[in-house]
């Protein structure tokens, strides 16, 4: 009987150990699969945003180089036509109307092209692009938009990171005006040799951050996807009626980024 008890106990123990080990293996495999899925999703997201940015760049370039230059040629020819149309008042009036329409079209094309990819961002970097964006909002609206750039030992950052941070700022300003009805916005860009910090604050209506976790709008989703893509950390602080603030921390990667743009 003693041997029977011992055999039964050993069997039970072996059974428990065996299933614990096999379960651990299954769990490890499931975690590996989950990690792979996550990586795949991140890669998809990265490619999506990258394709979107490339497409924007292409459209902006086409608009500027193709449509813009042709509109300029039409504009020049209209000048010539206007000189010759002085004899006929009806023709002169029609040419003036076309002039107005052409000028509007040139301005609209330039604006769309700049919105798609600001040349300042492309040529002078993030800080100047944000400054230009703030200036353009201040010129066209009653919004009080302050931008402060503090740079101690900043390092050059990848174009892709700059573009994403710029898009985030665009989205945030749009949200502050559209949803927060803010009248004042403060943006601070701080750069040192370790990280880049971007602080955004408005005096709008604010919201409950817990609600945001449950129901993220497309704009916020887009912001979070872009932050995830550049591997930046962020924190949101907002209360209903107490404005909104977002702090972004982008630690520079260990390898210095390529300076080629």
């Amino acid at each position, binding site marked *: *009987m*003693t041997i*029977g*008890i011992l055999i*039964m*106990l050993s*069997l*039970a*123990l072996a*059974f*428990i150990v065996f*299933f*614990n080990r096999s*379960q651990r293996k*299954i*769990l490890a495999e*499931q975690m590996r699969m989950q990690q792979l899925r996550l990586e795949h999703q991140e890669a998809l997201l990265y490619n999506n945003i990258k394709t979107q940015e490339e497409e924007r760049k292409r459209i902006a370039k086409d608009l500027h180089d193709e449509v813009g230059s042709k509109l300029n040629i039409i504009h020049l020819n209209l000048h010539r036509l206007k000189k010759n149309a002085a004899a006929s008042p009806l023709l002169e009036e029609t040419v003036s109307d076309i002039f107005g329409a052409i000028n509007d079209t040139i301005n609209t094309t330039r604006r769309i092209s700049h919105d798609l990819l600001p040349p300042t961002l492309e040529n002078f970097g993030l800080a100047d692009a944000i400054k230009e964006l703030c200036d353009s909002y201040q010129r066209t609206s009653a919004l009080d938009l302050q931008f402060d750039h503090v740079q101690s030992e900043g390092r050059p950052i990848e174009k892709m990171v700059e573009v994403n941070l710029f898009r985030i700022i665009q989205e945030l300003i749009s949200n502050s005006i559209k949803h927060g009805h803010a009248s004042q916005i403060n943006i601070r860009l701080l750069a040192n040799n370790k990280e880049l910090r971007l602080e955004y604050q408005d005096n709008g209506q604010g919201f409950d951050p817990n609600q945001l976790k449950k129901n993220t709008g497309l704009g916020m989703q887009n912001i979070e996807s872009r932050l995830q893509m550049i591997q930046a950390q962020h924190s949101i602080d907002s209360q209903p009626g107490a404005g909104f603030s977002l702090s972004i921390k982008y630690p520079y990667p260990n390898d210095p980024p390529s300076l080629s743009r």
Partner: protein
Amino acid sequence: MKSWQFLITSSSEFILLINIVLSLVHRWKDWPLLKYFSWLLFFSLIVQVIAKIMWLQRMNNLPLLHLYTLGEFVLMSLFYHQMFKQNLIWAKNIRWFIAIVMALILTNSIFFQPITVFNTNTKTLTQVIYIAYAVGFFLNATHHQTESYQNVLKTINSAILLYYTGSLFIFMFGNVLLGLEQRHNLFWVANALLYLIFQLLVFTAIWQFRQTKSTYS
């Protein structure tokens, strides 16, 4: 040998009491998966206290074992029902299964092994069923992988599997052992030791439950 048995039995009863208090503190009765197991612990304590009183009064406490076998089977089956109820075959037939086994336990106590003798037949039958339940849990464990209290359930199942496989032969030959000389009490000491391990594993499960609860809350 008797003093050893007394010491081990008293220790396991003391740990059982602690386990009941802790399961009440952590409100196991509010968790469907652990509710019936906490009732089983409580039922065990009541039966053990009454059995001890009867033993001190030099009364035959074997009728209590018949009652305990029945109650233990119902509570244990309900405990496993919470884990297996997503299985359609189980969910459809569990009532019939419990009713048939209960009928067998009662028939055995009335016609084959009266309440004054050891109910080895039904003890063996129910223990084999508990072993099957525990094995069934482990075989289906991967389906419950996402369950937050999976580690707690695994520990309880290990306790059940170890105790009932270890004591299966002891209860199977219970009547023979009762008639043997004092030196064969070794088997009852082994049973007491297995029960102590069972209670210690339940204590570990409560500890794991406490930690999981604080992680998820």
